[in-house]
């Protein structure tokens, strides 16, 4: 089973990329899991026609109930859930959910498992999918903007500390000048690769408004093909390496050179 964790700066489009990846895997016949790890528990909605599902941790707290929901083409969707903003410990929640899911739910014959992990890796809990070796390859979603690359670099530092392999960077375009080149160069500098480029497209929002991924809602649109292509690259990817982060100042210099 391919076990992937998708990291990246908050708001960069991890959930959109993750859900579309899951949809493209399922569409090609793979037994696929989507594990949303954001306490907001909204990542799976486009796989479930806009339905917000009960979360794993809420169900655990209340003593049981369904936690796996079949979405588009049979994608197994789970939202770990977590506390309201400002209380409890979201990190602890991810640790517990990831451990219990691995123990009780995933099976040998599953093909692909995608952890959609929230924002920056703010505490140990957010690294749980990696530290516990539940995910064995990581993809970082970024744009060509400084703060997105800065966050990506921080994540790379976390991976380096934990000795976890990075499969590559996914550029979710913000239509920054020379974006592909900038992200490509950044990837090379940290000892990784640009695995896919997802263009910016209005069809993404339009499908989201209908509670769907692009793969489901606009299957013939070039954007859907972009996600499918990304999915193929990821499945074919054999090039994984523990990254070596850059000095943040050098990221600025890199972006100045690219202009």
């Amino acid at each position, binding site marked *: 089973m391919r076990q992937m964790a998708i990291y990246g700066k908050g708001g960069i489009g991890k959930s959109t990329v993750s859900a579309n990846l899951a949809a493209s895997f399922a569409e090609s016949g793979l037994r696929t899991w989507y594990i949303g790890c954001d306490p907001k528990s909204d990542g799976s909605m486009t796989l479930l026609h806009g339905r917000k599902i009960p979360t794993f*941790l809420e169900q*655990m*707290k209340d003593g049981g109930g369904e936690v796996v929901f079949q979405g588009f083409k049979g994608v197994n969707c789970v939202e770990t859930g*977590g*506390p*309201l903003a400002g*209380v*409890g*410990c*979201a990190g*602890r*929640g991810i640790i*517990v959910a990831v451990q219990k899911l691995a123990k009780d739910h995933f099976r040998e014959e599953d093909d692909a498992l995608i952890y959609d992990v929230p924002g920056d890796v703010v505490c140990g809990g957010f690294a749980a999918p990696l530290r516990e070796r539940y995910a064995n390859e990581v993809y970082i979603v970024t744009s060509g903007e400084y703060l997105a690359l800065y966050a990506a670099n921080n994540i790379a530092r976390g991976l380096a500390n934990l000795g976890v392999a990075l499969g590559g960077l996914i550029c979710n375009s913000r239509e920054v000048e020379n974006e592909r080149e900038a992200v490509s160069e950044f990837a090379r500098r940290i000892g990784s690769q640009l695995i896919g480029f997802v263009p910016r497209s209005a069809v993404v929002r339009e499908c989201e408004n209908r509670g769907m991924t692009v793969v489901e809602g606009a299957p013939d649109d070039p954007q859907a093909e972009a996600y499918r292509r990304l999915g193929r690259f990821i499945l074919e990817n054999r090039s994984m390496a523990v990254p070596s982060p850059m000095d943040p100042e050098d990221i600025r210099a890199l972006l100045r050179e690219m202009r």
Partner: protein
Amino acid sequence: MRDVLHPRPNPIIAAMYTLRDLDADVILMHGPAGCGFMAARRLEEAGVRVMTTGMQESDLIFGAEEKLVRILKNVDDRFRPGLIGVVGTCASMIIGENLDGAVKKAGVKATVLPVDVHGCSGPNTSGAIRTLEVAAEKEVISFEERDRQKSMLTRATAIERERGLTSREYLEPHPGATKLSVGREIVNVLRRGGKVAVALNAKKETAYGFADTMRAVQYARDRVGGETVHIGNLDPGVGLPRIRRYASNILRDLGEAGVAAPALTGGLDEYPVAGEKAAVALAECNADLRVVAGLPHAVPGLRKEDVLVTDQPRELRNYIDQGYLLSVGEVNTHAEVMSTDRVLFSELGNTIREIVDRGYA
């Protein structure tokens, strides 16, 4: 910073004991059911009700403020306490539980002291200091009393670091010298007409055990001769009401045993500074044998031939390794001092009595 490997008290337990000293009716631990369990048993023997919010995994993840509010109200209705202490634990504090907010929300009739401490929040005394600060803010004690105790606690931490349980990387428990050898030493000095000085420098309730050394030495003197000098931090006019009660009770029992008016070095919570006064008194009395009971290492200028009495097996190791070979462990009374209001019969005390009565010396 030196690593210290052996287990030792932490701020949570110190907060619980300080709440007992404040005569709290209920201590509510906000944390897992087992946190502070052994300390809770002792405190319940001392008449304090200890309760727990019994946090579970889900409480860690989602926070347990509602649970704390619910249990506080329940405790208030059920036991009608005057004073409740809510004590944090590692679990609740690491996830950032708001004890103060929960106490305000519960709005119970009792005075409630939220004590925001956990196991990693500093030396054990930091838990006591935090409790005193909250108690002063809530007008349970005066600011002067808080400051007096804070300075004692700061001194205590420094003494432990310099000479006590945190002065070494690891202290293996040691059984100490036998009570028989130490008892014979004491009785023989008296029998030869010598002078034995007993300095009690004990912490709070532990004095109920250590004070028996004074009684037993006096018992021996009355039967075999010699001279005695008694020194103790038994001032009944210092400290919180509970601590003063201990001192009065002990002075009463000592008086009944013929130990008249020991020289007072301070109150039972003043052992860090009372030790210095004890040292002066010991130097002045020019005794042939000196017995220091309680926290001997808080008494400066100890001599290798002194008898040191402690209730801590690791402290025995500390003393014996430093060459104080007449260090003796009074370990059994440790469990009973919490629930008594009379001086207990100690092992060393009973050994001295037996030596005298049966002529072993």
